[in-house]
C-alpha cells in the first residue's frame, strides 16, 4: 500500500477511557496518579532499562533511517506522523535522552531531549495505545528494533503510575476473577458446551463431546473464550477434530481463556494471567496443552509460558501445541478423513495473525490445513502475508469501541490486500481478528465471511 501524505495530529484525539481505582487497585496499581508521578515513572523507566536489553538497546541505537516509517498499518491508515514506528519510539526516546543520557542532560532540546511533562505523558497514552504490538516494523529494521518492546515498556511505566486503559484492565481483572476475558461464569460455560454438543449431534448425528474439567484427559485445550460464544463454529471444529482423531481432551473453567491481556499491560499481569493455564494443567493432570485460535495467546504460550511459570516438566509433553499444529499433524498422519467438497463455493484467503507469524513461527500449518480442507485457496500479495502480514487493526489491547476510528483506518492495508484476491471468505485463527473483521468488512463495504481455520476443517471432516 502506498504511504499517505503526513497528516500531523490526525489521530491525536483517539484515546481510550482511563481505568479508575476499582480496576487499577485489584491489579496492584495505584488507584490514581500520585503527586510524585514523574519521579515514580522515571524510577520505573530506569528499572526497565536495567531489565530489558531490547529496550536499552533500541533507545540507544536507532539511526532514524526511516526504513520502518511506512511499514505500520496505523500510519498507512491515518497518516499521523506519530504512528510512524520511529516517531512512536521517539516519544519515549526523547524522555530517555533527557534523563538517562549525557548528551540529553547537557544539551537538552538541542539533543532532542524533552522533560516528562503531562503533555508528553498524554502523547504516550495516546500513541502507545495506537500500537498493536504487531512487530511488523521490526521485520524491516536493520537493527531489529521492535517497537512492541518499546510500547510494552511505555505501558508498563504508565501502569506503574496508575495510567492504564479501562478496557485492558477490565479484561485482565475478569481473567483473574472469572477465568476468562469475556467474564463467562462457570455455569454459563457448562450450558454453552452442552448447547454446542446438541448442535453437533443435530449436525452430525454423532455424540461429540465438549468435555469440561475432566481430570486425566490427554489434552487440555485452552481456547479464547470468544470461541464459546461468538465463534462457536471454531469451538465445534475443535470438538470434531478431537472426536475424529480419538484424542481425549478437556476444557477448563479455571483457565477458560487462552488470551492474555497482561501482555498489553505489564510483566506482572502477563505472568499472573498465564499462571492459570499452568495451574489448570497441573490440577487436571493432563498430558499436554493445546492452545486454540488466538494470536497473542500463542505468543504467551509458546514463547513465554515456560519462562514465566515453568518448568512445564510435570506434563508428559512440556511443549504447548497450537491447534493448527495438531490438526496439520493429524492430517499428515492420515488420522482424520476429509471431504474437501464440503467447502465448495467458498473462495478462501488466509490472514496471518501478527503474533502467529512474527512471534510464534506459525505460518505454514494453517495453510496446510486450508489446502487440505477446501478447493479454492488463494493468497493475498506477498508483501502482506507471513512475516510481512498486516495487523487486523485491533491487536495489542485496542479492540475497544473508543478506538473504532483508528481501528478501521488501521485495517486499510489489510482490506486493500484482501480486495486483490477476489475471495469471498477470510480465514484467520485469532479471536481478536475475528472480532475486528466484521466491523471492518461493514466499514469498507466488503462481502465475505470471516471464519476460523477450525471452522473450515470442521465442515470438511468426516465423522
Amino acid at each position: 500500500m502506498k504511504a499517505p501524505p503526513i497528516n500531523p495530529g490526525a489521530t491525536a484525539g483517539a484515546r481510550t477511557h482511563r481505568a479508575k481505582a476499582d480496576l487499577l487497585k485489584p491489579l496492584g496499581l495505584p488507584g490514581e496518579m500520585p503527586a510524585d508521578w514523574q519521579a515514580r515513572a522515571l524510577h520505573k523507566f530506569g528499572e526497565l532499562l536495567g531489565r530489558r536489553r531490547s529496550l536499552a538497546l533500541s533507545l540507544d541505537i536507532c539511526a532514524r533511517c526511516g526504513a520502518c516509517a511506512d511499514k505500520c498499518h496505523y500510519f498507512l491508515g491515518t497518516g499521523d506522523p506519530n504512528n510512524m514506528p520511529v516517531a512512536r519510539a521517539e516519544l519515549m526516546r526523547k524522555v530517555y535522552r533527557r534523563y538517562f543520557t549525557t548528551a540529553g542532560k547537557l544539551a537538552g532540546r538541542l539533543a532532542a531531549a524533552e522533560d516528562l511533562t503531562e503533555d508528553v505523558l498524554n502523547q504516550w497514552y495516546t500513541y502507545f495505545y495506537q500500537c498493536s504490538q504487531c512487530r511488523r516494523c521490526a521485520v524491516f529494521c536493520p537493527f531489529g528494533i521492535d517497537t512492541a518492546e518499546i510500547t510494552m515498556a511505555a505501558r508498563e511505566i504508565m501502569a506503574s503510575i496508575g495510567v492504564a486503559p479501562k478496557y485492558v484492565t477490565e479484561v485482565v481483572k475478569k481473567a483473574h476473577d472469572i477465568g476468562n476475558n469475556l467474564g463467562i461464569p462457570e455455569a454459563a460455560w457448562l450450558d454453552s458446551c452442552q448447547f454446542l454438543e446438541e448442535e453437533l449431534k443435530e449436525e452430525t448425528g454423532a455424540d461429540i463431546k465438549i468435555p469440561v474439567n475432566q481430570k486425566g484427559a490427554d489434552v487440555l485445550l485452552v481456547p479464547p473464550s470468544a470461541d464459546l460464544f461468538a465463534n462457536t463454529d471454531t469451538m465445534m471444529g475443535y470438538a470434531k477434530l478431537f472426536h475424529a482423531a480419538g484424542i481425549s481432551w478437556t476444557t477448563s473453567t479455571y483457565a477458560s481463556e487462552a488470551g492474555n491481556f497482561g501482555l498489553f499491560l505489564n510483566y506482572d499481569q502477563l505472568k499472573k494471567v498465564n499462571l492459570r493455564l499452568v495451574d489448570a494443567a497441573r490440577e487436571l493432570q493432563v498430558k499436554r496443552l493445546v492452545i486454540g485460535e488466538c494470536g497473542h495467546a500463542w505468543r504467551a504460550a509458546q514463547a513465554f509460558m515456560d519462562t514465566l511459570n515453568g518448568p512445564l516438566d510435570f506434563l508428559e509433553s512440556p511443549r504447548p501445541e497450537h491447534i493448527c499444529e495438531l490438526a496439520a499433524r493429524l492430517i499428515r498422519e492420515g488420522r482424520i478423513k476429509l471431504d474437501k467438497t464440503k467447502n465448495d463455493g467458498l473462495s478462501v484467503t488466509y490472514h496471518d495473525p501478527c503474533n502467529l507469524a512474527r512471534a510464534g513461527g506459525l505460518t505454514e500449518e494453517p495453510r496446510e490445513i486450508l489446502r487440505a480442507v477446501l478447493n479454492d485457496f488463494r493468497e493475498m500479495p506477498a508483501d502482506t502475508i507471513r512475516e510481512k502480514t498486516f495487523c487486523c487493526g485491533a491487536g495489542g489491547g485496542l479492540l475497544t469501541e473508543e478506538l473504532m476510528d483508528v481501528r478501521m483506518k488501521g485495517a486499510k492495508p489489510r482490506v486493500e490486500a484482501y480486495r486483490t484476491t477476489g475471495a469471498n471468505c477470510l480465514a484467520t485463527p485469532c479471536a481478536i481478528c475475528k472480532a475486528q473483521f466484521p466491523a471492518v468488512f461493514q466499514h469498507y463495504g466488503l462481502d465475505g465471511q470471516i471464519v476460523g481455520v477450525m471452522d473450515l476443517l470442521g465442515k470438511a471432516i468426516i465423522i
Partner: protein
Amino acid sequence: MALLLPALLYAAAAIFLIGMGWRIWRWLRTPSPLVIVLTPGPKTSSGVARRLVEEMFGFRSLFKADHLFWVFAWLFHLSLLLLLGGHLGGLVFPKFSQTALGLTEIQFEWLAQVAGSAVGVLAMATLLALLVRRCAAERPRRISTISDFFALALLLLIIASGNQMRFMGGLDLMQSRRFVSGWLAFSPAAPPSDPVFTVHVLLICALLVYIPFSKLVHIGGATLLSPTLNQRNNPRDRRHVNPWDALPAHSPRQSP
C-alpha cells in the same frame, strides 16, 4: 603544535574506547528476560550466526524495506569500511600490505591512489545521496533531528577533507605515514604541513568523541546484540530463564 595534534588524538581515542566499552558493557549486562526472536527465526546457533552475518554485512532487513535506500546505505557503509581498511593498509602498514599483495612499490602506490580515489568518491556520493534523502523525502525529513544532520555533516567534512588532500592537495604521504605510525607507536611525529591534514585529523577527533554519545554508537554491535535477531527460536525446546524473575512469584495452586 607538533605534539598538540597527537595529544588531542590520544584523548579522543581514549574517550572513544572507554565510551564504547562502557556502552557495550551496559548492553551486555542487561538481560533479555523473554524469548522475543522475530519468527520465522533460526532454531540453531549456526542459523543465528548466518542471520546475523546477513544482517550485518548484507543489511538484509533494510533490503526488504526499501531497495533504493538499501543501495545507498549499503554502499556508504561499505565505502567507510574500505576507507578504514585503506588507511590501515596504506598509512599504517604500507610495507606489509605491499608484500602481502605481492606488488612492487610503484604498483602498490598506484593501487592505493586509484582505489583510494574511487572509494573516496563513492563515500562522498553515497553520503550526499543519504543527505538528500533525509532533506527531501517527506518521512525521513519529518523524523530527523539535529543530531542526524550533525552526524552526516561531520562525516561529510571528514570525507571531503580527505578527498581534497587526495585530489587537490600537495599532501606529503611519507610524512603522513610517519605521523600515523608514530602516533600508534606512542612516539608522535610531526604532522604534514598541509593544514587540511590538521583539519582532517581534528574532525576525526570530533567523530571519535561523538560516536559513543550518539546514534553512531550502533557500530558497537547494534545488530549483533539485538535479541529479536540473535536469539534462537527454541523457547519450547530449551528452558529460557529470566534472571530477574528466576523464582516463581506465586506458589502454584495446590490440587484439592
